[in-house]
């Protein structure tokens, strides 16, 4: 039994212009202590998937179907149907969250210490003094310099990297089994990103916390995750252990994404994926990637939505022609979006 098991999740937004299925049948599992990277470009549904886990999707978004099974000491709860009161104990208790922009996630009128202590007291029956002591302990854990002084400071007095450390301290304050980190280092400079990734990896090793890392940065995934799931247009198109995915990508979208990144000095044009990411209200029929796919076989790919198939142990691909794609030779034909 994995720690978190998402089965066939459908989350849609009901807008005046119609139903927009941002997440359209996503299944994912995360084992205890594992790090799963969920990658994809803007609008692919990766953040909506993360928000769905804790039912934080804002109206007009609703979880239409699927199960989100969380293992709580051998007992399984479905977070989709769990009563709100019980879910509040899961949020911040069993599952912690870290968002991209710590400035908007922290309350500007409370001190750092008060905010971490509040997170502790929501889930544990402790005195204010003990909660404050726990807050200090957490700041030490995330290696905040001068933690006693920081406890009484406000978010605006901290740098971006320090604020993200506070977010991590809050997320870990109640010793969660799982931390959902949504683009935790995207707003940070690369040397500060290195500090935060190092810290997350170290905390995971010491505390055994599982991490769901949502990012658009394939490099970050390659250096931090055990497993990777690639999303495109509301669906998972490929999933595999990280080493396997990067050395043997099999879905044309994954192959295209990896080839589009510049590595080294220019020796020819970059490989491109023609066209652009479709908006959820214009997802194409059949395989959603077929209009941009250099390998598409028409009319098959336009007519039939392919299933996610296990082609090797732990390696799942949503493309019936993935066998033929063993040796990546992506299209380099540039074309306007």
């Amino acid at each position, binding site marked *: 039994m994995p720690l978190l098991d998402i089965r066939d999740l459908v989350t849609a937004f009901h807008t005046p212009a119609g139903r927009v299925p941002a997440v359209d049948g996503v299944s994912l599992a995360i084992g205890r202590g594992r790090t799963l990277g969920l990658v994809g*470009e*803007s609008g692919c549904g990766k953040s909506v998937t993360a928000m769905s886990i804790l039912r934080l999707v804002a109206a007009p978004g609703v979880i239409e179907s699927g199960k989100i099974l969380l293992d709580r000491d051998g007992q399984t709860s479905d977070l989709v149907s769990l009563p709100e009161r019980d879910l509040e104990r899961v949020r911040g208790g069993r599952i912690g969250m870290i968002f991209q922009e710590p400035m908007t996630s922290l309350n500007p009128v409370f001190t750092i210490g008060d905010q971490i202590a509040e997170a502790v007291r929501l889930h544990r029956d402790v005195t204010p003094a003990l909660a404050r002591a726990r807050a200090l302990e957490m700041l030490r854990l*995330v*290696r*905040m*310099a*001068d933690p006693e002084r*920081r406890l009484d400071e406000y978010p605006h007095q901290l*740098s971006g*990297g*320090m604020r993200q*450390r506070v977010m991590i301290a809050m997320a870990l304050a109640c010793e969660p089994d799982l931390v959902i980190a949504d683009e935790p280092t995207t707003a940070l*400079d*690369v*040397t*500060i*990103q*290195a*500090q935060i*990734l*190092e*810290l997350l990896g170290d905390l995971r090793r010491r505390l055994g916390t599982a991490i769901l890392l949502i990012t*658009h*940065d*394939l*490099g*970050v*995934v*390659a*250096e*931090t995750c055990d497993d990777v799931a690639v999303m495109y247009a509301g669906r998972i198109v490929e999933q595999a252990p990280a080493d396997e995915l*990067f050395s043997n990508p099999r879905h044309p979208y994954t192959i*295209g*994404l*990896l080839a*589009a*990144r*510049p*590595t*080294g*000095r*220019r020796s020819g*044009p*970059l*490989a*491109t*994926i*023609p066209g*652009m*990411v479709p908006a959820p209200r214009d997802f194409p029929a059949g395989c959603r990637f077929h209009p941009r796919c250099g390998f598409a076989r028409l009319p098959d790919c336009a007519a039939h939505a392919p299933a996610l198939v296990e082609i090797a142990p732990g390696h799942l691909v949503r493309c019936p022609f993935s066998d033929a794609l063993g040796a990546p030779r992506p299209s380099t034909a*540039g*074309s*306007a*979006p």
Partner: protein
Amino acid sequence: MTPTPLLDVAGLETHFPVRKGLLRRQVGSVRAVDGVGFSIAKGRTLGLVGESGCGKTTVGRSVLRLVEPTAGTVRFDGADVRATHGADLRALRRRMQIVFQDPYGSLNPRMTVRAILEEGLVIHRLGTASERLARMRAALERTGLTASALERYPHEFSGGQRQRIAIARALVLEPDFLVLDEPVSALDVSIQAQVVNLLVELREQLGLTYLFISHDLSVVEYLSDEVAVMYLGRIVEHATADALYRAPLHPYTLALFSAVPTIDPARRRRRIVLSGDVPSPARPPAGCRFHPRCPLAETVCRSVDPPATVIDGHRVHCHVAARELDRGGTAAAAAARLAEMMAGAGADRLPAGAG
């Protein structure tokens, strides 16, 4: 290094006043750019890299005088940009254009693409109405769009297409030189590659010269002939792209490169995690500005601003690198020794939250 640079910048300083109190008295200044020099030959691309707040964007804007520099000289094709006024300045500016990072914020949502492209032509009094239309069509086609875009508004286009419009707006004036300020940073990976290819094509077809400003080290390596690394208002290292990426000499460059996550195990470097944050440019540290975060810092680094050491056109401002280069041997050998020292010094240091 090159006979006649198209752009030559020397001793450039751009300081912003810090004002306080009822009378808005100036109580200090942010030294965003504090003594920067470089030159770019015609048809070449200089990449300018560094983290937020290092001053790279201010350098780009100061060169075009979108912000007024405090000191230094900027020469464009022999003309002193800072001493030029009125019609002469306008003539220079036609030849120097800029493309911004955010394709959403840099195009006026109330203007059609035609109005956006025509604005520059009108200001510079270029062409008759039909000549302008021909120029606008040509610029759009060069960027991979069609003339049908002219009557539409920015919101009707995707991020990648908007960035093409921003490039077309610059091209319509037939410039020689473009400042590209993070032109692909806001775009998704698959769209980024399309725009990078377009920039390369335009450079080759039109003989354009680029100042390419970015925090993305991979894109800079791919596009640039030379690269300058900035830290706290200064260039700390400047070399050909090949030399800089193969054998970086400045401890900051080494740390920056090692921090970039990569999917290719062969290109992965031992990660050097710097402690602390970048200090404020309002109060830069004495001596070498990088010394509070530098694992190799020595006593001299705290008090003496390191001068440039130059070897085969590779410039570096670092006391420790200068000493290693002094020991003889090739620059590559010195770079390898410095990388060894950085890895050794970093191993027993825990990264702390703040400096």
